[in-house]
């Protein structure tokens, strides 16, 4: 890196050669990292981007394997042995609950809360739901679920897969604290996102469109053709469809009362199309805000999705298509005609059209390049990804492969060019000190504290990819605090083993070890001097080690990836 110009051109030449090769030959193994990049540097870079940073010993392991071979293996997660994590995963009780169980638990907690309030003496200040054991259990499970994401990211061997799960969780964002999504979110992550995180984009898009969590979050479950009436309303038995209180519309015989119940049911009923999902589908999930669609397109997309709803939403039911609510008229989206008389099939047709639209390819590829290469993604990276998308009909593994084989991924200006997000910071810190977290929500709480609580981004755009969104003075101080606490073994529920990381020795040995094993050799002269000064008067070796590691993880080099 002494002569950046020469270095860059070498990288570009190397990468071009590699690329020419890629057109003809089978998957590349080891070409892209430029000659000026040491094997350690490229392993460190790859571990910082495709993984949540290195654990002790990861860099030499990847060097020994060859970085491109390691990348190829990460692109086929099913082939990676992850038994150790599979064992650990069983400790998470939340995985034993399906969405119906969680809905029942939630309903029970709500009922208890109501009863408590009804029974409460007149002058209670606020409701003391803390005392409610069912609500407590619900909260514990929710905390455990947030922690599961952090612990998986820290411990799973399928690192790129976990990174992609996080990417799609943000791309297809939902909000854990919105009504039924309190019990639909775990199912969404486990059964909608995860099985498709490294498959075809089209499959993932269709799965999210049909997921109860998304249907609820963006209100599509309530979107009906204007003037349509559910058959159930005529029978006055349509309980959950209309309201939040299943008990309200029980079987009723008295005709007068029945009329009033029907009136109230109809009053509560959704009265027309809801454009929320349609708009975000075009703007965020597929085409992008400049994707060339019009407000009329949004309306027709919403019409196409009328009737895409949820069976018994308050009881954790699944996807259900309501014929009666579907607008069967003709629609036109992006100039494509959707003839009258169709049902659920036209929604699927539309999703396939959108998934393979050039604007979608560009929009999603750009976000991937932003994630893996630079907050301001280079055009070349986006072009490579789009080309791979076209070749592979949207196979995410091929798109990712193109990005990792491209020159931009390895370019000097993109090394350490990104600041870790709160999740990336916490997970990489836990990995750096070989932490063993339990199932308590401790690490997830740190992520939240740093500004990006899991599954709790309100707006449908997900947490942004640009650093300006999360780098600020308060959050930075909190990173320092988290680093010091983690290194000192003071984060409850997280066991830290520094022995294997750094043998105790004199200050210089300690600093060298921290530089090599935690900072991948990127420690600045200034940092070395500061550490040396700080360690000068500390005689206890354990204390010295904790301080050096804490300062390194809380310091500026570790914030970058």
């Amino acid at each position: 890196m002494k002569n950046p110009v020469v270095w860059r051109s070498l990288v570009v030449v190397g990468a071009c050669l590699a690329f020419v090769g890629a057109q003809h030959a089978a998957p590349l193994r080891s070409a892209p990292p430029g000659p000026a990049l040491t094997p350690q540097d490229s392993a460190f870079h790859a571990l910082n981007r495709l993984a949540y940073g290195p654990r002790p010993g990861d860099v030499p392991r990847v060097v020994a394997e060859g970085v491109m071979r390691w990348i190829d293996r990460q692109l086929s997660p099913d082939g990676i042995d992850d038994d150790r994590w599979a064992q650990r995963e069983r400790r998470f009780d939340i995985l034993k609950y399906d969405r119906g169980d969680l809905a029942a638990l939630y309903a029970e907690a709500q009922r208890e809360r109501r009863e408590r309030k009804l029974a409460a003496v007149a002058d209670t200040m606020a409701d003391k739901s803390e005392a409610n054991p069912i609500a407590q259990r619900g909260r514990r499970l929710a905390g455990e679920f947030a922690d599961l994401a952090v612990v998986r990211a820290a411990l799973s061997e399928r690192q790129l897969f976990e990174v992609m799960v996080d990417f799609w969780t943000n791309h297809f964002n939902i909000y854990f604290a919105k009504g039924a999504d309190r019990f639909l979110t775990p199912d969404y992550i486990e059964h909608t996102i995860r099985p498709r995180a490294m498959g075809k984009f089209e499959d993932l898009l269709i799965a999210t469109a049909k997921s109860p969590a998304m249907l609820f979050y963006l209100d599509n479950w309530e979107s009906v053709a204007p003037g349509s009436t559910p058959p159930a309303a005529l029978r006055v038995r349509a309980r959950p469809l209309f309201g939040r209180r299943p008990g309200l519309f029980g079987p009723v015989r008295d005709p007068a009362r029945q009329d009033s119940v029907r009136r109230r049911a109809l009053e509560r009923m959704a009265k027309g199309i809801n454009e929320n999902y349609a708009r975000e589908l075009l703007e965020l999930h597929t085409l992008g805000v400049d994707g060339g669609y019009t407000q009329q397109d949004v309306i027709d997309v919403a019409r196409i999705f009328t009737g895409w709803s949820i069976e018994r939403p308050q009881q954790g039911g699944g996807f259900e298509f309501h014929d009666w609510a579907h607008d069967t008229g003709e629609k036109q989206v992006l100039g494509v005609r959707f003839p009258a008389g169709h049902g659920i099939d036209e929604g699927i047709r539309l999703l396939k059209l959108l998934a393979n639209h050039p604007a979608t390819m560009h929009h999603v590829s750009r976000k991937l390049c932003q994630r893996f290469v630079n907050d301001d993604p280079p055009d070349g990276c986006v072009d490579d990804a789009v080309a791979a998308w076209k070749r592979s009909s949207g196979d995410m593994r091929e798109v990712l492969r193109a990005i990792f084989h491209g020159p931009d991924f390895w370019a000097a200006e993109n090394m350490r060019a990104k600041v870790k997000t709160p999740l990336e910071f916490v997970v990489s810190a836990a990995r750096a000190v070989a932490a063993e977290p339990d199932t308590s929500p401790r690490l997830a709480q740190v992520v939240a504290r740093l500004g990006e609580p899991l599954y709790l981004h309100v707006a449908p755009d997900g947490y942004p990819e640009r650093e300006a969104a999360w780098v600020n003075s308060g959050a930075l101080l909190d990173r320092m605090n988290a680093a010091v606490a983690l290194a000192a073994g003071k984060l409850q529920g997280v066991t830290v083993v520094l022995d294997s990381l750094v043998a105790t020795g004199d200050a210089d040995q300690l600093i060298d070890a921290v530089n090599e094993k935690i900072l991948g050799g990127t420690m600045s002269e200034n940092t070395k001097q500061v550490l040396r000064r700080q360690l000068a008067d500390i005689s206890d070796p354990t204390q010295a080690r904790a301080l050096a590691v804490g300062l390194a993880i809380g310091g500026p080099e570790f914030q970058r990836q």
Partner: protein
Amino acid sequence: MSISRRVFVKSGGLALFSFGLDPLFLARAAFASYRPLPPSTVFSRPILVCLFQRGAVDGLNMIVPHGDPVYYRERPRIAVPEKDVLDLDGYFGLHPRLAPIKPLWDSKSLAAIHAIGSPDATRSHFDAQDYLESGTPGVKATPDGWLNRYCQHDREHQDTPFRAVAFGPQLPRILAGTAPSLAIEDLQAFGLRAPQPATRDRLTRAFEELYAGSATGLLSTSSREAFDAVQMLKRLDPGQYRPANGADYPRGKLGKALLEIAQLIRADVGLQVAFADVTGWDTHVNQGASEGQLAGRLDELGQALAAFTRDLGERMHDVVVLTMSEFGRTVRENGNSGTDHGHATAMLVLGGPVNGGKVLGKWPGLDPAQRFEGRDVAVTTDFRDLFAEILARHLGATELSAVFPGFVADPARFPGAIRG
């Protein structure tokens, strides 16, 4: 108006009295504070404190239309009895537990805006809070909050680490965005945490050196702001703060947040926008009338606001406190002696610059025909009209179209909460 305000801001407030701002803010008798204006007053900047009544406050039991028989007819169990209401103008009155802020009404430093809310009809807390905070009703994808956008576009104010502060564990949506803003849960715990002050100082110094020497880009500027803030707070010594004028903050989160806000205002650290949440307003069940659940929440609110204004005394001259809530509640009580999600609500505005002693906004009436969808108080004031007025006339904002995209802020529609 906004132009002269900018002049004011630029000239450091020397022209203070030429704007007709009444220097005798707050009838002094009410606050027993006869101290002369401290020098800092002259140089201080306008400050906005926003309190979010998260959960949808029942505007009708906060600012009670006791002059309307429909109110009593629709709420046989939860209406505040005529004899308990603190009358304001013959038609509206304060809930009795808001008695601590009645003196502010009498000194014309407190106004209420009734029938205010969102043009969007949603009755979902989630959506309505989102719209209130993003400032873009009906548009979900807005990435930032309107208070943050104000900070982005008004560059007149000097950026200090404490310019925009939310009191709570996380930055709320309303302050999310690219302008620097802080979330502070506890002033005393802000900065590096260590059991001993010596360890704390040592860690602070070490990290400061690390970042000063090696950080680049945004990490560099943010870390500099962070350590400036830590320095400022160290001088401030928040643990030693004693409220002035015998102000007594109620225990609980709101009292603590307002105390810390008062402390930052007094410390002149450049605070311009402060925010805190107040929860517990979603009164579906057993809401109560003069006493009960809602009364308990209003009691805390009233006491906290009274303590805050008492503590700040003359400094209230430059402070506006605004309460907001995502929507109001049904006119008719429900089967559980509570109220369900409605539409318009009431918001309070108090402080020196406030055009007080009035219930502002156009009152739509409570008759079923006048209601929104036959059940809720109709919205006659878009909340953005109030927010825009406060930003323009109090903080001196000029780029309202950037703060509220897609909305034309028209002074003719401002409810008149700030004295012109």
